[in-house]
Every structure is written in structure tokens, then in C-alpha cells.
């Protein structure tokens, strides 16, 4: 009964899991439709936004302040892709309980439905931008076989987003300040993650500081897979997987305990 607490109560477990999946699919679908249906260019906007950021940053760091990174647009794109999902994902998971109070007032709906739908909706933006990156790669250095391992990396990032997001979400229900703090942190995090620069170009002491940021490992791993065509180093893998697993477990534990009384605070 305890373990099933987060899933729909009572009915046989297989059905509960099936229903949970259907529910998340339906919620993500709705959210995506609402975002892009009435726009003339529909989901193209999902692609346009990262492309614009890409164009601006590429211009700045190849023309104004050249960093001397080879294949800079692809270098930037491969980091931006993963970072953007993390940034938007953590923000929307944090806000999910407050944004979708209606889900928490539905008997029998798993309380994880809101956060899951939030992070997966943001994943769609990544999936929309991915083909563009692949085209960039094809036109430039080519697509290495290691790109096939991207889903594994995304799974680790998903765990990290959920872990961090669920913890912040639990706080946000009691203190709406959390939402602001998270937006602020994400803004800062963009500079503390080697999205538009290389870690190697930093001074030693800054490098070790940045290594504490799991998204540093995620971005570095993403470049190994998509650009360099080799498996990430063991240190990089543990640098993302370990924090991802630990934060996910902590996040789920805290969320499970606190979400039982969320509706009392909303």
C-alpha cells in the first residue's frame, strides 16, 4: 500500500502503471498542443528559440570575442541542447505542484503526474531541436556512432532534473520564494556550466570548482558523444550519474513524504 501510494491507489499494479503512462502521455500531448497550436508556424517555434540563441552566441564567440574553438556552432549546440532542457525542466518541475493544482485534487491520479508531464513537455523542445543539430553535424564533422548513446545521457539528465526539481517543488509548495530562487540559480548556472566555453581553457582552481557541477559532466559527456565520437571518461560518467541517482532518490523520498499534504498548503 505504501509503495503504491504514489501510483493510482488500489487497482492491480499493471493497470496502474499503464494508466500512469497514458496519463503522462495525454498531459504532455495537451501541453504541447496548447503551446503551439494557435501559432502560425506551430512547433517550428520550439526550434526557432534555441536556433536564435545559437546564432547570437556563435556570433559573439566567433566574431566579437573569438574563443578559437573548432566547429564552434556545433560545439555550442551540443552543450546548449542538454543545458536548455535541464534549465527549463528544473524550473517547470519546481512550479508543477502550484501550476497544476488541479492534478493534485484528482483522486487516484499519481502525484508524480504533474512533475513528469512538466519535464517531458520540455523534452519535446529538445527533441524538436535535435534533428537540426544532426543536420549541422552532417554538414560539418559528421555524426559519430557514439551519438546513439545520447538517450542514455538524457536518462541521467532526466534523473537529475527530477531529483533537483522535486526537492525544489516540495519547498515551493510552502514557500513560493523557491520558484524565484530556482530561476535565479538557473540563470547563474548557465555561466557556471561550460556551455559556450571549454573547461580546459579555465584556470586550474576554477576547473575543479566547475567539476562539482553535475551539468558540467553532462555537457562534456554530450560533446564526447555527439562531437568527438568517443565514450566519456569514467570521471565524467560518475560526475553526472552519481549526483543524478542520489538527487533522484532524495527527491523522490522527500516528494513522497511532503506531497501527501500538498493540497493543504495550496
Amino acid at each position, binding site marked *: 500500500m505504501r509503495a503504491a501510494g504514489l501510483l*493510482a491507489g488500489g487497482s492491480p499494479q499493471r493497470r496502474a502503471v499503464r494508466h500512469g503512462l497514458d496519463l503522462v502521455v*495525454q498531459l504532455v500531448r495537451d501541453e504541447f498542443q*496548447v503551446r503551439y497550436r494557435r501559432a502560425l508556424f506551430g512547433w517550428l517555434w520550439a526550434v526557432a528559440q534555441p536556433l536564435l540563441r545559437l546564432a547570437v552566441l556563435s556570433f559573439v564567440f566567433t566574431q566579437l570575442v573569438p574563443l578559437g574553438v573548432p566547429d564552434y556552432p556545433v560545439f555550442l549546440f551540443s552543450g546548449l541542447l542538454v543545458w536548455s532542457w535541464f534549465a527549463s525542466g528544473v524550473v517547470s518541475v519546481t512550479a508543477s505542484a502550484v501550476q497544476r493544482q488541479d492534478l493534485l485534487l*484528482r*483522486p*487516484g491520479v499519481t502525484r508524480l503526474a504533474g512533475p513528469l508531464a512538466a519535464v517531458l513537455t520540455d523534452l519535446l523542445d529538445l527533441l524538436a531541436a535535435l534533428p537540426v543539430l544532426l543536420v549541422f553535424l552532417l554538414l560539418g564533422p559528421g555524426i559519430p556512432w557514439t551519438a546513439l548513446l545520447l538517450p542514455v545521457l538524457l536518462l541521467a539528465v532526466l534523473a537529475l532534473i527530477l531529483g533537483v526539481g522535486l526537492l525544489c517543488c516540495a519547498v515551493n509548495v510552502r*514557500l513560493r520564494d523557491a520558484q524565484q530562487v530556482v530561476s535565479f540559480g538557473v540563470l547563474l548556472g548557465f555561466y557556471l556550466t561550460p556551455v559556450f566555453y571549454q573547461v580546459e581553457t579555465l584556470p586550474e582552481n576554477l576547473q575543479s570548482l566547475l567539476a562539482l557541477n553535475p551539468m558540467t559532466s553532462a555537457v562534456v559527456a554530450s560533446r564526447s558523444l555527439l562531437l568527438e565520437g568517443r565514450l566519456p571518461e569514467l570521471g565524467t560518467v560518475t560526475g553526472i550519474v552519481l549526483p543524478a541517482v542520489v538527487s533522484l532518490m532524495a527527491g523522490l523520498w522527500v516528494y513522497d513524504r511532503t506531497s501527501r499534504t500538498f493540497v493543504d498548503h495550496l
Partner: protein
Amino acid sequence: MTHPPGPLVLSADRVGKHYRRDMTGRTGSLRGLIERRSRQDLWALRDVSMDIHAGESVGLIGRNGSGKSTLLRLFAGLTVPTTGTILRAAPVRGLLTLGDGQKGELTGEENALTGAVLAGLTRAEARRRLPRVAAFAELEDVLDQPLRTYSDGMRLRLAFAVSVHVDPTLLLIDEVLAVGDVRFQEKCLAHLEALVEEGCTVVLTSHYLDQVRRLCRQVVWLEQGRVREAGPAHDVLDSFSAAMGTDVGVPEPLPGGGLRLGTGQVELTSIDVLDAAGRPVGLVRSGSSVTVRLAYVARDPSVSHLHAAVSLHDASGRVALEIPTEQGDLVRVPVGRSGEVALTVDRLDLVAGPWHLDVGLFEPQWSRPYDYRWKALTLFVDGRSTGRGMLSPPVRWGSSSGPDVAGVGRLS
């Protein structure tokens, strides 16, 4: 009960629910947490025990704040009790949040599918059930239209239709039968009756005692978080009604679509709108003088004073005017065996259209209404349409023009 009870479906065992109310009104902010001194403890439920068996239909009644909705939330598993235990042996398919979470950008069909999945169906099941839902809601023709084009009534019809077409075995209903037009309400009641006949367990809260009488065989009366009386519907409803005769009671619908609430110690006998000449009117010109006259009889000789209030609002509930007796020369109105209170508005500068009138007579501390009538009557204001807004006071535009002045910058 004539037949033996089925297996236990829901059970509350000495359940209590405690809330901390933040009295500063700053819920969910850092300051609210710091300023703990202004917090108030509240036991919404205290030591409540009850068993509900399969196939039973139970009504929860009581005044606002008696704990009905809290109990329903606990039964639904939306939150956990502070003390005691809740047992639930069947999946809940509730109507607790009818219409919440609907998305205006999506079509009625998409909203219905999501609603059904949220209520416990898989996507495939939801799709198969769609025609029946659409037929029940009488919305087959507009199902592919965005929900934002629907009226409030249509949205609620759709939400209700979805909620009752998910094969519920346990249905929790919180006040939602108070919505929709009378004919559709009747259809919903009939459908719920059929569900109960088929063995669905229903627990509902309602302010409408008629609905409770019709749908429920068992009734639990909650008062200040405790069970005051529980048993066969007619017994409990009778003692509830009897007790409410000297208390505020539950709102009763008025024939014109309004609601009435109050202790009945002083009762309104007539509500009239009079023009400047003192003639009762239903239509007044914008800007003219209007008097609202309330006539009453005092049923309770111990009542010595009262307050009165009159407010005017439009169809969407926006209040244009709200005037209690405190805001005039009459501070506390002395009460005779019968009498009148009248409010005169010297210039009623409202835009043309129908305006709803709420009137009420209250206890001197404003704590309870003696007789409060929401949408007691509709006053039609006639006048030139002045575009948007609520007010239509006498206005004048002026303009002047002058010679060309060199060096005057643009207004920016």
C-alpha cells in the same frame, strides 16, 4: 437498511485533521513563516469515525466549515489525516474538481479524453467511451470546437458527463450538483440514481437537502468537525432541518435563480425598488434617483437591532455598489415587530443593462445573516450605452486649438 451491507469500502477511524491557518494572509511566503505569532490552529475534523459499505449512498451535511469537504478529501486520499486512520478499499473516481484543469485552447473532445484519463481510464478506454459522453453532455455537434467557445454551462456538462462515464465503483461528489441548468441537473441526478441502483458507492456533500434526500440512504451530519448525528437519511435530515430552523441553515434556492440564507429570526417580507416618486419600478433610467425598500417582520422577539446591506452586481458578479447601513446615517437599526429599511441612491449612474440586487438583514455584529438574499431581484437600467465600464455619470469632453508654437516637442 433492508439488505445486508456489502464489504467495507471506506472507513474513518477516529480521524482528526488539523490545519494551521496563516492569519496574515501571506500563505507561502517567507514572511508568513517568520511571522508565526499570527497563526491560528484549527481542527477541521475531530474524532470522526464512520464505515461505508459497498453500494451505500451517504450524504454529508452540515454548515459551511463543518468539515464535510475535508472529510471528502481524506476519503479521496488527496491528503492524510493528522490523527486516526482512513481505509479505502476501492479506487476512487471522484467529482471533486469538476471542470478544473480544462484547457480552452483544446477541443471539447481533447478535454473529454484528458478528463477521462484523469478519472482513471486508459487512453483506449477513454476514446471508446467518447460518443456516450458526448451524447450525455448533448455536445456532439461542437465536440471538435475549442473549449473556449463553450459557455460555462457547456463546460460543466462536459466535465460531469466525463466523470460519470468512467464506470465508477466509488464516487465522491463535492457540491457539484449545484451547477448547470435545472433540466441538466435533473438528468445528472437521474444518472446518479441509476449508478446507485447498480451498486456504485456514492458519498456526496450538498447544500441542497432535496438532492441528499433523493440520492442518499444514509446521512452524516457534521458540526464543527465532529459527527453530530448519523443514520437513515430521513431521520438525520429531519433533525438537521429542525435545528437549522433557529440557526442559519443552508441556502435555499429562490424562484428567480437566486439563493437565500439566514437564521430567519427576522424575515424579509418584500423587496421593492422605488423611483423618485415612490412608485415601485423594475426599470429605471440611468442617473435617476432610486430607493431600495426592505420590509421585514421579526419572528424572534429577542432581536433588538439589525444591520442591512444592499449591493448591485452584474451578471458576471462584478460588484458596482455595496452599501451596508454602517456606511450611512443608520448605524444600528432598531427592530420593531415589523418595519422597513430603505436605502436611497440619489443618482444611480450605472451603465444600461440588467443589474442583480443582493439584499440582507444581519445580526448587529455582522456575524450571521437573519435573512440574506443573493440575486433577490433584477433591476434593469435604461440609458444610452456608453461603451465599456460600469459607470455612466454625466460627462463632457472639451477641446481647444491654438496657433502653431515653435519648438514644442512631441508628446512622447
